[in-house]
């Protein structure tokens, strides 16, 4: 760990952002590398499997890795497992997971691992927008959480909390969506062309209307929003939700311990606890 750069080191350095890519599709990998290069990043490593990528991390020393989820050998969740390993072994490296499918359970498994920021989950489709990709990369390198808008839209569209969400103004709903996507007050303001003060007012409105505890920390705020939305998606009051046993049906996003055996293997833990 001592050999790795910290966020502070990188901020001091003036070089381009160093990115490593793992994806078993050579075509997509090459295209992504070209795109990133064109956008001013330095692609320091490319690998067809997560293991190859992790093995080369000590040498390539990227600021961020971009991981596909389905990779050899089992084509299931190699990317998620690799993300967990990288975050455990190389804390300074930000992880951006790109997936063909926007699967809420995966996103929540990834973001709910309690390891803090520097983590993102985006749909692969976003690669057609260099700006969005750059933005996401920058945000994860800055230690923030990033979540694809399609997942957030899915969570917001869920019926269970439709009544409560209906109490929000359209503007407040947009602010909520951006919070869930992992944007800071400043980022939200820039996206919605709002003054910081206005953004803060909207956020306060959202938190009070939905009865969510406010949090100053951006990443905790993302998790709080996601937890609220996720509970909405799975429904409250189910057996096992409170106990949070691994065999139960808890749907709470639970930062803290994480497991590689399945998206549902989460122990009960409040992000505010």
């Amino acid at each position, binding site marked *: 760990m001592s050999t790795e750069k910290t966020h502070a080191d990188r901020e001091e350095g003036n070089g381009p952002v160093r990115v490593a890519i793992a994806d*078993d*599709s050579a*075509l*997509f990998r*090459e*295209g*992504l590398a*070209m*795109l990133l290069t*064109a*956008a001013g990043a330095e692609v320091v490593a490319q690998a067809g499997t997560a293991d190859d990528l992790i093995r080369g991390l000590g040498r390539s020393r990227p600021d961020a890795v971009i991981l596909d*989820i*389905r990779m050899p050998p089992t*084509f*299931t*969740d190699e990317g998620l497992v690799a993300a967990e390993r990288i975050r455990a072994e190389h804390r300074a490296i930000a992880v951006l997971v790109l997936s*063909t*499918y926007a*699967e*809420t*359970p*995966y996103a929540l498994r990834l973001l709910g691992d309690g390891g803090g920021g520097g983590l993102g989950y985006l749909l*692969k*489709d976003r*690669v*057609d*927008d*260099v700006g969005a*990709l750059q933005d996401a990369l920058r945000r994860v390198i800055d230690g923030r959480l990033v979540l694809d808008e399609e997942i957030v839209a*899915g*969570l917001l*569209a*869920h*019926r*269970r909390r439709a009544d409560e969400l209906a109490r929000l103004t359209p503007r407040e709903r947009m602010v909520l969506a951006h919070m869930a996507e992992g944007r800071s007050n400043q980022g939200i303001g820039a996206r919605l062309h709002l003054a910081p003060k206005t953004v803060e007012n909207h956020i306060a409105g959202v938190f009070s209307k939905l009865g969510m505890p406010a949090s100053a920390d951006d990443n905790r705020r993302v998790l709080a929003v996601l937890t609220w939305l996720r509970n909405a*998606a*799975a*429904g409250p009051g*189910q*057996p096992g939700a409170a106990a949070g046993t*691994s*065999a*139960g*049906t808890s*749907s709470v996003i639970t930062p803290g311990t994480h497991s590689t055996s*399945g*998206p*549902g*293997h989460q122990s009960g833990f409040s992000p505010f606890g």
Partner: protein
Amino acid sequence: MPHPHLPARLSACAARHRPWCLAIGGTATAAGAIACQWPAFGHSPLAATLNVVVALAFALTAAMLNGEESLGSVTAALVLGGLLWPLSWTAGWDAGPSALVSTFAYTHFWVCLGWGVLRYPTGRLQNNGERVLLGVAVLVIPLANLGLIGIGRPEWFGYSGHPDVWWYGEPIGHGAFDAVVWTLDGLTLVLAAAFLLVVRGRLRRYSELDRRIFRPVALALLLAFVLASTVNFFVYNPSDADIGPEFVAISLTLLTIPLAFAAAVLRRVFVRARIAQLLATLPTPPAVRAVRAALRAALHDDSAEIYLWLPGEDHHVDADGAVRPPPPPGAAELVMTLRTATGAPLAVIAAAPAMRRNRDLVEAAVRASALALENAQLHATVAAQLDAVRASRARLVEAGLHERRRLERDLHDGAQQRLLALATRLGLARTKATDPDTISAIEAAREDLRHALADLRSLARGIHPAVLSQGGLRPALEVVTAALPVEVELDVPVARFEAVLEAGAYYTICEALTNTVKHAGASRARVAVRHDDGIVRIDVTDDGKGGATAVEGGGLAGLDDRVRALGGALVIVSPSGGGTRLTASIPC
């Protein structure tokens, strides 16, 4: 001993006309017995009547046993016994050949009895020991009798010595005669003891069924032998019209012999009835194991085994269902082959080697079990075919799942990645483009590409959701229910199941929810999945209008097929206006 032609024909005739045979034989025997003892009726009427009863009992038992397979010589011995016993009492006439007839008849009666019993129940002597014993008895007793008459006076035998009574021989000294008599009495005891040993040896070798049949007869005869040989020490043989109490005792004991035979015959009849009864109470469809248990119980043979022929699989299975070839025809066991009504191979039944003696009973049992076994064979054949169908259906389901996953993977690895690579190139082109027209063309292409990717994704997800293989039922259901316009509560464990079951459960639940959305007009639905004791139970309930019925080719019928393909069962409860509850139980 081979039956002479005439007795065999007589026996067959008697068996055909049993009532006549019983009536005529009984009357003749009674008349003969009364004639033989006519003088004795004056002195000891009760004892004489008892003797008539003994003779009648022997004759009637013989008539009853006649027709029983392998008992020809036993019947003959009984008939002879019934004849000889009254003749033993002709001494009372005290005239002519009465003394000689009485002496010969009495001694030969016992030889005849031993011969008959030793030939029971198989009609054959079992080994050389028995042959020697019977040979010695047949030789010694008549010869000794002839010799004794030759060296004694009628008075020494207890006869009156009336000058009209025929006699022969040259008497020796009374003392020497007594010594010879004592020696012969001792020899009789030895013979009785040897008989006891032979019987004991037999009982040991016999199967349980034979033991049960033979024991009463052997015991009755032994009792009579012991009593007679004991009496023999005091009284040589019946000698006058006055019948002593010792002979009354012997007569009473002798009565038990036909009774024992009758009991044995009844026991065989009872065994047959028991076979029929046991087979009648077999469960339906009859399990081969149950048929075997019935056979074993009825035949008292715990080694009896049924080898059922399975025509579809071309091999035999034993009653426990294990593949096992039956013993070859030359094996020690009693092996019987059973065929179906149409002559096709049905089963081979093997019984203990000792059961050969009761081949008739085994055959009766085998015949009685034929129908049950035919049913069992049919059942086993159908079950095997059903298993084969089930297995092939399971393979089809698995192949279908495999194919879906392959398709989805092909889409993912092929078209989707190509389009995504194209997206990177469009993104790259967009960064390079400066001309507004080019930019707008790229934007349009990008928009089209996004739609294409979304369509492809939805297509791939419909073919097989990747999240199902990767994360299991729960995350897959979370994804699919999030997009539904109905509020769905999920009570689904995160535990993983077999891929085929997960896929089956997933599509079942999806179809059920589709029905709920399309037809039920429900506002809420609940999906519960429970795993208990090898069964996964899926409940999909909604608060809709109910009244759902499965129609041919409809969605619910398709659901039923899907669940059945996994070996499960589907129950739909949908009262009008009371919501719909769909329960699928699938073994895992």
